[in-house]
């Protein structure tokens, strides 16, 4: 074993779960872990199964048989390719669970089951994979979902960024809930559950080696229980959306287009952490376009807005919730911001990622 690689059993793993032998024989992923033989079985038996253990998964059948409660089924899938694999406030494992859980929650579903597909790169330290899997298990526990089926493939060194994860999820939508991007109505109120841009700037600060005075921490989190509390205020939430890639601006543009309405936001009402605002300022970026992984946008009828705001603020994931704007009949399909100096501007969708400015 190379001297700079610690055996997994000694590696710091978050939580109480620790990986047993014999994975220590291979401190890194080797091609054989994806070959369907003993090594692959050991990965499942000694890593995935103990971490994710539940009745459905533990049966180890070719497919998992699930009994779903009554209601409409929500079904979503997402792939996660983030670099670095671990970052302040989370990891690709936490993202892979929370991302799909949140996609289910945004349709008003109670998330129930997830699949997990891993594409691992030869050479990935087993300790890193151990922490990723531990994070997934913790995130699943917090969100109240079970990981019931999975798959592992290994690609040769140089053909991946260490680890890619795909998750698919099933949830159930109770009767009386109809949440969709087409449902924004003129007069509705727009709320956001907290500060924007935290995740994108956290990733950028570690990926690009940017040093700021304070560490920016990702907001990666499950929103399922926040949504449950919001639905308790009224099932008549018109739109929910987690503004991930493309940020708040892309999500609100998509909603405006889908509903054929205009959306107006007040820039001064947008919650942004000072350190995120400063980092954006330095790089010439606009926090409305920066990714979030633990925030939601809600569009609700005006008569429920204040109660909804109170319910969101009473939840730990919504402590900084704010009313940021409203749905309007003017400029259908467009997002407009009221600027701090009392003018207005169109916030259009970005073509791709925001690029830092030259000066």
């Amino acid at each position, binding site marked *: 074993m190379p001297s700079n690689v610690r055996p997994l059993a000694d590696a710091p793993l978050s939580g109480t779960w620790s990986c047993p032998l014999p994975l220590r024989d291979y401190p890194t992923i080797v091609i054989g872990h994806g070959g369907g033989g003993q090594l692959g079985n050991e990965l499942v038996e000694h890593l995935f199964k103990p971490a994710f253990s539940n009745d459905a998964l533990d049966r180890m059948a070719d497919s998992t048989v699930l009994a779903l409660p009554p209601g409409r089924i929500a079904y979503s899938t997402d792939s996660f390719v983030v670099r670095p694999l671990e970052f302040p406030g989370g990891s690709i494992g936490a993202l892979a669970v929370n991302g799909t859980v949140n996609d289910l929650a945004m349709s008003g579903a109670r998330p129930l089951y997830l699949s997990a597909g891993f594409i691992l790169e030869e050479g990935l330290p087993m300790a890193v994979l151990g922490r990723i899997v531990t994070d997934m298990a913790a995130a699943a526990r917090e969100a109240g979902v079970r990981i019931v089926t999975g798959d592992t493939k290994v690609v040769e060194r140089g053909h991946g960024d260490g680890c890619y994860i795909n998750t698919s999820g099933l949830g159930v939508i109770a009767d009386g809930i109809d949440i969709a991007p087409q449902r924004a109505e003129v007069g509705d109120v727009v709320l956001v559950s907290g500060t924007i841009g935290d995740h994108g700037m956290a990733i950028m600060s570690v990926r*690009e*080696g*940017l040093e700021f005075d304070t560490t920016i921490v990702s907001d990666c989190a499950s929103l399922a229980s926040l949504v449950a509390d919001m639905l308790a205020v009224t099932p008549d939430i018109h739109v929910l959306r987690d503004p991930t890639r493309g940020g708040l601006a892309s999500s609100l543009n998509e909603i405006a287009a889908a509903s054929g309405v*205009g959306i*107006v*936001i*007040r820039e*001064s009402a947008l919650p942004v952490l*000072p350190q995120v*605002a*400063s980092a954006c*300022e330095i*790089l*010439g970026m606009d926090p409305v376009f920066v990714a979030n992984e633990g925030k939601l946008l809600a569009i609700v009828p005006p008569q429920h807005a204040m109660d909804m705001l109170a319910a969101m603020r009473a939840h730990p994931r919504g402590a900084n919730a704010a009313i940021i*704007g*409203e749905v*309007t009949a*003017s*400029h259908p399909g*467009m997002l*407009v911001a*009221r*600027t*701090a*100096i*009392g*003018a*207005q*501007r*169109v916030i*259009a969708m970005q*073509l791709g990622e925001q*690029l*830092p*400015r*030259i*000066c």
Partner: protein
Amino acid sequence: MKYLAEFRDGDIAQKLAADIRAITTRPWAIMEVCGGQTHSILRNGIDQLLPPEVELIHGPGCPVCVTPLDMIDKALAIAALPGVIFTSFGDMLRVPGSEKDLFRVKSEGGDVRIVYSPLDAVQIARENPAKQVVFFGIGFETTAPANAMAVHLAKREGLGNFSMLVSHVLVPPAIDAIMSAPGNRVQAFLAAGHVCSVMGFWQYPPLATRHAVPIVITGFEPLDVLEGIRRTVQCLETADYRVDNAYARVVTFDGNAPAQALLAEVFTVTDRAWRGIGVIPASGWRLSDAYADYDAEHRFDVGAIRTVESALCRAGEVLQGSIKPSQCEAFGTQCTPRTPLGATMVSSEGACAAYFNYGRFHTLERATVG
């Protein structure tokens, strides 16, 4: 940020706008030289607060926009070479060359990396001694000191694998060229505050006198821009053709002496082509003879570049203030951020991109969020 919030106060902005309206008696055409100011004006909606008599003309101060096409094509050619790590600020990657952009070169296998400082490129050179590391050194006097420092460091450390593709441009010669051009409409300038923070403003009084044009050194926050416009209109209304410093918290008359000394050592003034405008005499910097070994144009054989500029693109007229972006026939149709014909539609500081992204409110009803 607490220091910035003071310069974004909505009530003070409204008061400044009212002051401008009160002193304006006839039409004036004012050019903001810097792309950062264009961006601030359209992002904050400053132009919406001004009286109709005050016309803001967007100047050539977007470094990405004015980098000549042959320099972009040279960058593309160098970036595609095996064994080269080509480094650049992010917003250069989408600028179209004759056939492609740096993103395309990257997708085709070129090792193109975004950096946040030229010193990062020097660090990459230290860490990759077997590769040639090239930094795309563009920009005005604002970015030049850091670029000069990067070359200076590379030479001091004897880093034989670092070089810079230099296309620096200078503001005062551009002001002179705009005022000297036939058909010029510009009557006053908001000078670029960040440029002046480096260079001071000792170069401007002769320009103001020669062309009978007020020049007001102006910052970038909404209140900075409004105060700059207020002072400019005041000068115009009283025929007071002087240089005024409205950005005194950052800019001094003499500027940053150590930075200017470094620039004088590393760079030499040269004639420079501006994309869309043409060659302006003594309007740029190249590496001085003492640093010629670090010039990427010398190190790599890219002399046979043939450039093909779009026949439809009128970016040059936009950059000189002759037309507004929306007056170009291709604006928003053949030319969009997805299908840019010129750099002004690509750069975040480009006037065409700013108009496309922010400017559509001109057609909107006033929204009503309190």
